[in-house]
């Protein structure tokens, strides 16, 4: 778990509303730390999704915009085109980014829109009470797949990072997790790089963060982190899927 030292400047004093043990909080912190370290708070504009992170606009101390469900990459495109010198990021869940907003995601990526996307994959629709997500695992029991996700009738989960990495457009795609200290540190590095890329004008950087939803998975926070390790990560392998500037694609 993240070591608690001092609250990043880029987070406000508003108390987070996330459930106990939810990893949204850690990811917020990593984003804020990256912004602090790069000293870009004053010119950063964040775009909040519709999902559990909808209130992110109250938590990040930079200017914020609340987008319609799935539309954050289009809103971010507008912001970046209007203010190319500013730093624009979106923070989106899997329903937001990979279901209703898939077109906006793919097209922002293929345009290599110079923005940073933080994609929180928790394999479920958290905010609406635990329905099946595009990233729910085969067999995963959710409110709308009460007998387990049946791939024969509802298809397979979408591996967003792999899929986007097939495009020529995007600059940088990496999947990380926040289920242990080692992974949190790697996630921090990746998120910072995704912002650094934007500062350098390199283009679209997406960090997929494998996250947990103890509440809607029906698990204790500890059990949920184990599930991340045992079920999620094997289906969603961590790694860099695209790094154009490094001029190599590795997994």
């Amino acid at each position, binding site marked *: 778990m993240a070591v608690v030292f001092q609250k990043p400047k880029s987070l406000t004093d508003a108390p987070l509303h996330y459930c106990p043990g939810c990893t949204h909080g850690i990811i917020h912190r990593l984003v804020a730390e990256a912004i602090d370290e790069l000293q870009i708070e*004053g010119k950063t504009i964040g775009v909040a999704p519709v999902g559990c992170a909808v209130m992110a606009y109250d938590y990040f101390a930079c200017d914020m*915009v609340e987008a319609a469900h799935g539309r954050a990459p289009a809103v971010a495109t507008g912001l970046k085109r209007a203010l190319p010198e500013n730093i624009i990021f979106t923070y989106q869940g899997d329903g937001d980014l990979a279901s209703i907003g898939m077109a906006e995601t793919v097209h922002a990526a293929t345009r290599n829109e110079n923005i940073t996307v933080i994609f929180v994959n928790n394999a479920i629709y958290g905010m609406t009470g635990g329905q099946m997500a595009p990233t729910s695992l085969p067999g995963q029991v959710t409110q709308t797949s009460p007998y387990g996700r049946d791939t024969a009738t509802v298809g397979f989960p979408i591996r967003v990072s792999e899929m986007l990495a097939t495009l020529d457009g995007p600059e940088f795609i990496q999947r990380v997790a926040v289920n242990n200290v080692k992974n949190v540190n790697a996630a921090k590095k990746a998120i910072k790089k995704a912002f650094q890329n934007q500062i350098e004008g390199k283009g679209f950087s997406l960090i997929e963060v494998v996250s947990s939803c103890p509440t809607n998975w029906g698990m204790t926070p500890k059990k949920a982190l184990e599930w991340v390790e045992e079920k999620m990560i094997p289906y969603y392998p961590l790694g860099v899927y695209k790094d154009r500037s490094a001029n190599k694609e590795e997994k």
Partner: protein
Amino acid sequence: MAEKVLMKGNEAIAEAAIRAGCMHYFGYPITPQTEIAAYMAKRMPKIGGVFLQAESEIAAINMVYGVAGTGLRVMTSSSSPGVSLKGEGISYLAGSDLPALIVNVQRGGPGLGGIQPSQSDYFQATRGGGHGDYHLIVMAPASVQEMADMTAKCFDLSDKYRVPAMILADGTLGQMMEPVVLPEPTDYKPNKPWAVTGTECKRKHNIINSLYLKPEQLEQTNFERYERYKAIEENEPLWEEFMMEDAEVCVAAFGIAARVSKNAIMAARAEGIKVGMIRPITLWPFPKKPFKAAADKCKAFISVELSMGQMIEDVQLATECKRPVTLCNRTGGMIPSPEEVLEAIKKAAGGNK
């Protein structure tokens, strides 16, 4: 004096928008408004502006939302099916009090409908179109000149009241070529303390948002917005009266229907029928005042529309149903002929003048 140039209605909107300081355009191709996008695609890169063909109308309106949040002037254009898709984003613009211009060059509907001119999105435009309690400022041009002038006016009103504005045109006006005096270019500099531009660590963060989880708060926000709507209804209705001084029959028509009606009215006058027209220029706010006044002296009203009858309800409301209001209409891309309107006028006048 600015010189007159010959332009298509759609191009006049595009050029007027640029002159009003709109440097960002987002759209998705659809007939019959494509000239706007084509014009922007040509001009914007030359003047340091942004033209972007979005992946859908949904994306386009959300790009508009992003730019509007920064306080800059921004627009999108589409035609009926595309405007339906923009409905979500328009509702969010309204809910976040963001100024923007949306142009709907209407075609026949419902569904994929056709590509010929229509006015059948009147309800959608004047009743909101998306979900929730809101209005747009809606202006209906009847000439290429008005398309240019209204573009500038829409940006001004939209900024003034923080209410998105719509130009509700139709395929005929969009394609029509007429001489036009373009508005003088303005050097638009936003002065919007609410905009998201980066805090520069000098102020509290600004938030563009339409979410209010506490119902009391949402109610208050809506109340406040409706105060602005009230001011708009008081100050901004626009209309043209044509031969209304002695009129006994009053035609109500906007846009292309008003042009056809004018010809019919001239013909009716030549036959001695005392008929005039009130042409709403703003559809929201609807110009209630002249209709209310006309209800006291005219014996009958005719709503001439390129739809199955939508504005007619506003005419009935504004005249408080004091007089009969009949409908003279074509739909699906058809335009009523002056003869059809003349027939309707004669009928309303009672056959014998």
